[in-house]
């Protein structure tokens, strides 16, 4: 039980998907303009990462390994993630329009998101069992949402400030992310 907790803590705080793996930068730069869209993005990513990595995990150990097709893992995982996102969008559009209103815009962006694919592959390369896979997926998405939310609060102030003309927008956001990475790397001694 102990190492599940350390795995969770390390994926959320220390080995954070954005700050130490640089993944999910496209939504991180594009969507973090305000807090509500950051939260919406966070929940959409949480739902997709956990769903997609469980599907990929099942497909890998039930279909690819018995058939000896491990080398197909990259293309299978991409198709699984894409199918899952399309299915979710379709399901929300048809049955839960209210949820679609808040998450709908973010779902198509996640189909080709580096973070989702990384988690699906990471569960396999580390040969995690089911419990570790779930904890890893939830941990990564919580870490993503946490950093995205904190960053959106900072970014609201950044947009209000008047930096050098050439720093406006993304360059300043990147440097702020660098400072956040510095702060979070201080937690490394936690585990």
């Amino acid at each position, binding site marked *: 039980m102990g190492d599940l907790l*350390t795995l969770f803590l*390390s994926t959320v705080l*220390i080995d954070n998907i954005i700050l130490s793996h640089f993944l999910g930068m496209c939504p991180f730069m594009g969507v973090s303009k305000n807090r509500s869209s950051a939260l919406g993005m966070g929940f959409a990513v949480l739902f997709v990462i956990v769903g997609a990595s469980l599907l990929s995990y099942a497909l890998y150990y039930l279909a690819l390994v018995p058939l000896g097709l491990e080398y197909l893992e990259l*293309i299978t995982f991409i198709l699984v993630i894409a199918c899952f996102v399309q299915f979710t969008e379709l399901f929300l559009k048809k049955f839960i329009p209210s949820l679609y209103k808040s998450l709908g815009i973010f779902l198509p962006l996640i189909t080709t998101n580096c973070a989702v694919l990384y988690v699906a592959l990471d569960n396999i390369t580390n040969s995690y069992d089911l419990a570790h896979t779930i904890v890893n997926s939830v941990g990564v998405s919580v870490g993503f949402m946490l950093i995205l939310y904190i960053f959106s609060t900072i970014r609201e102030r950044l947009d209000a400030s008047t930096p050098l003309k050439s720093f406006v927008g993304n360059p300043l956001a990147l440097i702020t992310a660098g400072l956040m990475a510095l702060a979070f790397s201080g937690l*490394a001694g936690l*585990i």
Partner: protein
Amino acid sequence: MKRAFYLAFFLAVVAAIAGGALTFANDMTKDQIAANKAATEKANLEIIYPGSDFEKLDFTDDTGMIVSVYKANEGYVYQMSTDGFGGKGSIEFMIGFGTDGKISGYTVLSSGETQGIGSKVAEADFVSSVTGKDIGASIDIISGASVSSRAVIKGIDAATAHYEANYK
């Protein structure tokens, strides 16, 4: 509705062709990759027991730190991965337990630790402080690199416990 079937068929054919290309590429590179893997494995083990032959053992492990276990002529070699300052699985090292009850060798395979601080776990004085010690004897932490050295020691203790439980 008919359009949907045509689209489904089209993408299925594209995916099948992709699969075929991947199988072809896989067959071409399969043995080279296996050869690479065996070569690096052997090279790592040779550091602990030069010239000995090794037999890979399967093992049960709940610490999650033991990567693989080998039986050599004069002892056992554990390949370990522990979480240091550089995050999850940032330090990978090999440790050899001799049948004479002493640690026969210790070497770091890869370390994501900070340059000049955590990387001391791979340097000569820490290595010599570990090699030659009796199995189970306590190893002191490097002052100034406590996170990394404590992580390595945690790994060594896990290997020792597993060794004493199974092969002593």
